[in-house]
C-alpha cells in the first residue's frame, strides 16, 4: 500500500519581534498567510485543510481555532486544532496528507507573549495542582533542576552553557533576531544566575511570532522547483506526567524514539545525513541535551561545542538562525520559527546565516519549555530527497 510523499511548498512568517503590538493577532496571521500563499504559488481556494497549533491560556480565548479560518482563507474547509507546538500540528498535517485524505493543507501558529502579563502563572498551571503548583512559584525552576542534572551526567560546565548562548546570540545578530548580539561566553559568564546553573541569558526571552506553512503531496511538489520534501515527522511521548515524579531528569529520552522513526523513513542515520539542525532550545542546556540524545553520547556533543563544530560554516551548524536564545521564546510558535528557518536554509534563502550547500535538515521542538516530550521533522531537497 502506497502512502503520499509530503512537500513544503511555501512558508510565510512575520519576523520574530519583542512585540507585534501594531498588529492584532488576526492581522498578523492574515499577513503570514498572504506571504505563505505567494511563496507557494497557490491560491487559498485550492487549500483543503487547516491545522493550527494553539493553547487556550496562551491565547486568552478558549477554543481559539474559531479565529483562524477567516485569516488564513480556509473558511468552510477541514480544520483541526492541535494543542501543542507548531511541529505537533505539522505532524497531524503530515499524517493527513500521507493518508491521502487531502492533497494541500496549511499549518498555522501564532504566539504573542508580549500581551501576556503572567506567563509564568500560565505555565505553572500545566503542573499538578496539589503536589507541584504550591511548591513552584516559578515553574522555570524545573529548567534549573533539569540543567543541573544534565551538567552532572554530561560533564558540561556552566561555561559550556554560556558558549551555547553566545553562539546563538551571535547567529541571531546575523539573522536579524531580536535578541541577537555580538557577545562572548566569557561576557555571559558575568550574568547572574537566574535558575542556577542557568544564567540570565542562558534562558530565552520572549518574542512574538506568527507563521503559516503550505504543505502538499507529490502532485503539488512536482510543480515547484523550490519544494522541500518533508520526509518524516514524529512526535514522541513524555517520560512523566503533570506531577513530574517519573521524569528522567537531565535527559531527552523522547529524541531516541523519534530518531528511530526518522531513520527508518530515510534509510540512514539522520544525524549523518543532515547539514544543519534547528531546535527550540528554551535554555542553553536543552540544546546540548538534544544534541547528546541525537548523537547518543553526552561527551561528543560537548566536544563538538568546544571544538566549534556547531558554529555556522563548521561540521554541524546547530541553530544557525540563532535559536530561541537569539530569536526569542515564541511559546507554541517556536517550532514554527525553527521550521521556517530550516526551509529557507534548504532553499538557499537564509541570507547571512546561509549554510553552504545545505540539502537536509532536522528540526526539533519541545512540547513546552518544561516538557520532556517533543517532535522531530526531517527535511531534504535536491539530490538528498
Amino acid at each position, binding site marked *: 500500500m502506497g502512502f503520499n510523499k509530503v512537500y513544503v511548498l511555501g512558508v510565510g512568517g512575520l519576523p520574530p519581534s519583542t512585540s507585534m503590538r501594531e498588529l492584532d493577532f488576526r492581522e498578523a496571521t492574515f499577513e503570514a498567510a498572504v506571504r505563505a500563499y505567494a511563496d507557494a504559488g497557490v491560491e487559498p481556494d485550492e487549500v483543503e485543510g487547516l491545522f493550527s497549533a494553539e493553547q487556550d491560556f496562551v491565547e486568552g*480565548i478558549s477554543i481559539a481555532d474559531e479565529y483562524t479560518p477567516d485569516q488564513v482563507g480556509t473558511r468552510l474547509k477541514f480544520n483541526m*486544532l492541535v494543542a501543542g507546538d507548531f511541529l505537533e500540528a505539522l505532524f497531524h498535517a503530515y499524517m493527513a496528507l500521507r493518508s491521502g485524505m487531502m492533497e494541500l493543507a496549511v499549518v498555522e501558529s501564532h504566539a504573542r507573549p508580549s500581551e501576556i502579563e503572567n506567563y509564568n502563572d500560565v505555565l505553572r498551571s500545566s503542573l499538578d495542582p496539589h503536589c507541584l503548583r504550591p511548591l513552584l512559584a516559578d515553574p522555570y525552576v524545573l529548567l534549573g533542576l533539569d540543567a543541573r542534572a544534565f551538567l552532572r551526567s554530561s560533564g558540561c560546565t556552566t561555561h559550556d552553557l554560556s558558549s551555547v548562548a553566545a553562539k546563538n546570540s551571535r547567529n541571531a545578530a546575523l539573522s536579524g533576531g531580536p535578541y541577537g548580539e555580538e557577545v562572548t561566553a566569557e561576557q555571559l559568564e558575568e550574568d547572574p544566575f537566574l535558575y542556577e546553573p542557568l544564567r540570565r541569558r542562558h534562558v530565552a526571552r520572549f518574542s512574538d511570532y506568527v507563521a503559516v506553512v503550505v504543505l502538499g503531496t507529490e502532485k503539488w511538489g512536482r510543480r515547484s522547483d523550490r519544494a522541500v520534501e518533508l520526509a518524516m515527522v514524529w*512526535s514522541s511521548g513524555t517520560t512523566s506526567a503533570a506531577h513530574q515524579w517519573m521524569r528522567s531528569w537531565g535527559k531527552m529520552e523522547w529524541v531516541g524514539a523519534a530518531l528511530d522513526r526518522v531513520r527508518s523513513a530515510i534509510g540512514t542515520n539522520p544525524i549523518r545525513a543532515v547539514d544543519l539542525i534547528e531546535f527550540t532550545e528554551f535554555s542553553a542546556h536543552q540544546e546540548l541535551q538534544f544534541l547528546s540524545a541525537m548523537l547518543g553520547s553526552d561527551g561528543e556533543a560537548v566536544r563538538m561545542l568546544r571544538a566549534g563544530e556547531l558554529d555556522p560554516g563548521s561540521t554541524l551548524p546547530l541553530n544557525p538562525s540563532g535559536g530561541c536564545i537569539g530569536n526569542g521564546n515564541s511559546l507554541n510558535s517556536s517550532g514554527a520559527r525553527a521550521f521556517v528557518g530550516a526551509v529557507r536554509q534548504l532553499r538557499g534563502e537564509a541570507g547571512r546565516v546561509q549554510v553552504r550547500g545545505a540539502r537536509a535538515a532536522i528540526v526539533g521542538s519541545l512540547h513546552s519549555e518544561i516538557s520532556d516530550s517533543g517532535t522531530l521533522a526531517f527535511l531534504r531537497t535536491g539530490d538528498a530527497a
Partner: protein
Amino acid sequence: MRRVAIVGAGMTDFRSMLPHSSPEMIREAVKRCLDDVGSLSIRYVDGVLCASAPDAFDGYHDKVSIANEAAGAIGKPITRVFVGGGSGVAAAVAGWYHVASGLFDTLLVVAWEKMSPPYPHAQKLFQTIFEPVIEQPLGPNLIWIFALEMRRYMEAHNLTKELIAEVAVKNKANALDHPHAQLGARITVQDVLNSEVMVWPVNRLDISPTSDGAVAILLASEQEARKLTDTPVWIDGVATCLDSQYWTNRDLAFPYYVYLAAQRAYRMAGIVNPLKEVDVWEPYDPFTYKELHHLDGLLGRPGLAPKLLKEGQLHRDGDHPASPSGGLLGVGNPIAAAGLMKVAELYWQLSGRAGKRQVPNAYVGVAQAWGDLMQVGTVVVCRR
C-alpha cells in the same frame, strides 16, 4: 487508502458531578475499552490521541499532561486535539489519519470532560470562547445564541415547540436503556413545555446537562483489526468543516458547515443517498432543535428532519433512527466525551452489541458533532 477500524470501546458513567478526577475518569474509560478487546495490554497500543475542550474546565494549561499517564501513554506518542463541542468526533477523525497514514497500527483515542469544577455552572467559562473585543463585553451566554438559532430554525420551517420537544421525549427515553446515562427518563411533551423557560424559545428540558465523563475507543489497521476482533467496525468516511468566526453573518437556519463535512465524508465512504444508505444516525443533540438542525445538514435537505420526526421515523424502531443511544439530552454532555460517545455508540450498534438499544439491521452509521462558535461540523461514517 488504508482501512481503519474501531475494535473496542469503553466509557465511564456520565454524571453531573462524578467523584472521580479527570485522570481517574480517563483511566476507567481506557480500561473498559481495552477490556472490551479481550483485556488487551496497553503495551500493544502504538500511541494515544486525546481530546478535551476548553482548558479552563480542568483549570489546567496544556492539559494533555492530565491524560498521558492516565491513558497509559508514558513513552508513547500522545497529542491532543480540540474543536470545542466538535472535539469528540474530531478525535475520531484525527485518530483515523494516524492509522490511515501507516505510521500507527493501533491507536487509542480518548476524550474526557470534567465540567463540574467550575461550580455552580460552567456557563461563565463559556464566555471565554466569544470574540474578545466585540462580543465578550456584552456578557454573552451560550443559551442566548442557541435561542437565536432555534428561533430562526423554527421560523424557517414553521415548526412548533411541541414538535421540537419530542426530541427530548425520544432521546431521554432511549437513554433509559443506556447503562451510563445521566438523564434517562420517561417524560412528555408537556413536561418539556412546562419546564422553566431559560431564554425563549429554549426551555430547561430542551437542553442537555453539564456532565463529567470520559470515553475511549481503540482504532486499528485492517491487519491488526482482523487479529483483535471478529466484529470490526470500519471508519470509511471522515471530515471536519469550519465556518467563519462571524456567526452573526450566517443564516442560522441551516448548518452549511455540517452539510459540507457530511458530503466530504460520504464521498470518501462512497455514499450517494444517505437517507437510503445510512441505517443509524448519531447527530449532535446538545439542544432538542440541534438534532433536527444537524440531521438536516447530514441529509442535505433543509426541513426534512422535522418531517421525519413527525412521522416517527427518528425513533429507534423507525426507518431512520436518530440518537438511539439517548444522545446528549439523555446520556449527558461532557463536551468532548459526548462526541466520542456517539462514535462508540456506532461501534456498539454496528457490531451488534448495543443490547436493549440495538437498532435491527444496522450496517452503516453516521456520527456527528458540532462546536466552536456554532461553526464547526465533524462527521464520521462507519460500516459493519
